[in-house]
């Protein structure tokens, strides 16, 4: 084989090898191997088959986190981790320059959205929803966060407390 041919074979071989490697990796999904995108918290998410108190509490928490995250302009996931510990909350507030009052407003707004969503999904009786909204509008920040973190106990208490009253009121409804 002459020198010119050997040179062409070498350059051509290198070119083919490079194109094949890049092509195979692209075909195998190389350009889409990225973390999955999280959803916009401001978009409404339908509740999934809310049956049983635990499942309703889960959906309630997620709706509340969505609502608060939407108000603060962060992802639901960032807010969930931030509210998990007092230190996490401090860091989050410092990083995003959010004061106590703004966080409280956002968390309350989130809880109100959760009540709306629960009502819309048929998981919360409208008779319970109205007084719950009133309570949530003025709830202190720490308690509001506690409610998000432990929605099950909130809903359990609400059902337990207002359950007899609801039966009583329903007697007078048309």
């Amino acid at each position: 084989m002459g020198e010119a041919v050997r040179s062409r074979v070498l350059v051509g071989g290198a070119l083919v090898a490079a194109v094949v490697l890049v092509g195979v990796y692209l075909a195998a999904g190389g350009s889409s191997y990225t973390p999955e995108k999280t959803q916009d918290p401001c978009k409404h998410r339908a509740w999934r088959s809310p049956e049983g108190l635990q499942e309703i509490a889960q959906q309630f928490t997620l709706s509340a986190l969505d609502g608060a995250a939407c108000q603060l302009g962060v992802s639901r996931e960032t807010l969930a981790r931030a509210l998990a510990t007092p230190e996490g909350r401090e860091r989050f507030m410092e990083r995003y320059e959010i004061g106590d009052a703004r966080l409280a407003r956002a968390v309350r707004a989130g809880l109100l959205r959760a009540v709306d969503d629960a009502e819309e999904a048929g998981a919360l009786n409208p008779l319970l929803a109205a007084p719950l909204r009133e309570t949530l509008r003025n709830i202190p920040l720490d308690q509001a966060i506690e409610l998000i973190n432990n929605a099950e106990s909130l809903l359990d208490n609400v059902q337990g407390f207002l359950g007899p009253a609801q039966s009583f009121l329903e007697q007078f409804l048309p």
Partner: protein
Amino acid sequence: MLADSSIVVLALPQIYRELDTSVAGVTWVLISFNLVMALAAVPAAHLARRVGPGRAAAVGLAVFAGASLACAVSDQLSTLIAARCVQALGGAAAVTAVLELLPATVGSERRATAIWATAGATGAALGPAAGGLLTELVSWQSIFLIQLPIALAAAAPILAVAKHEAATGVLSAELRQTGRPHLLANLALALVSAAIAGALFLLVLLLIEGWRLSPIGAAIVVSVMPLSALLGSRLDRLVASARARAAAGAILVSGGLGGLALLPKAEVALTLPPQVMVGIGLALVLSALTETALSGRSPQAIHGGWTISARHAGVVIGLLAVTPIFTHDIAQQRQDAIDAGTAVILDSRVPPLLKLDLAQKIESRLDDEKGKVPTIGPAFEPLPDDPAERDEVVQLRDELQEQLNRGATHAFSPSFGLAALIGLLSLIPIAMARRVEL
């Protein structure tokens, strides 16, 4: 010395943790050395001609050895960087002077050039494996300490030459007119070196910081490059055309980097084919371009100085180009990955209190890792006793780790892509150099 930059690459993650600095900060351990080498190589070569290559090499090796010791005892990034600058000054003097001494030792200038070029390529490829082994088995300081006896051992025969120079006064007789450097070959050398620096630096960081391999594990993985470089040096002998070898090498380096930019999964095995291509490519292109830059040019030390300068300037350009991109991307991808993983946990059907517990542990884990890509496994320990709940938690842990792997891998993609592009740019001067055949 030719392997120095690549040896240090494997130690960077450990230096970065121990000296409590940032990725961008620790990059200056490499940049400072290469910048001073780039600036000092040609003046050092002129100095070698004036004072004699034996003397210049002996003094250079002594400075290099002393500075290596200073690097090893540095406990702050600033002193380490300062010592690296002095190390590079000594290195520049020694490397360029040795090239002037080689022809007399090996018999001809052409053979000396080939040996010198191969030593450069082999050093660049072998460095990471040596650096990884030393870093993990001993410490990051050991990579500098080991350079001390090597430099002193090399100085012994050179001292004899220096004494001979002093006794015979051969210097003045050997001073010749210096020809112009081969601009296109040196430009291509700079561009290819920028791409190769990107390949080594980014791959090591991806393996250690992104995929959490140990330095020794990463060293074993990147050893594929020197082994492939050996194969490349065999091809080197089959084709005489330097331009063809340079073009093929540049294409292989860029193709390999393109593959690393498009890794379809966070699996070590998938880095092997691109590494084989980069290894073969670097052996072909570095030796072809160095031979071209030196061929028919005299004196060898000055033109060798130009190639050293071009290669190290290329490394500086490569590091300065890719570092800001991947440091920005890794922070963003880390956040996206953690968000994606948290979304998996929030949308799962594990009990709310368990979710809260996991969120707390993940937050603490992130706090412990201080902005680095975390290993998320410990956040899920201990696993729940209930078998059904345990299976669900294990699945969540794996999904969260998968999101982190995706984020870490993707964070490096644009930088690998840029390095591939720089490698392709070297084809322009290679194509323009129509009269570079040896």
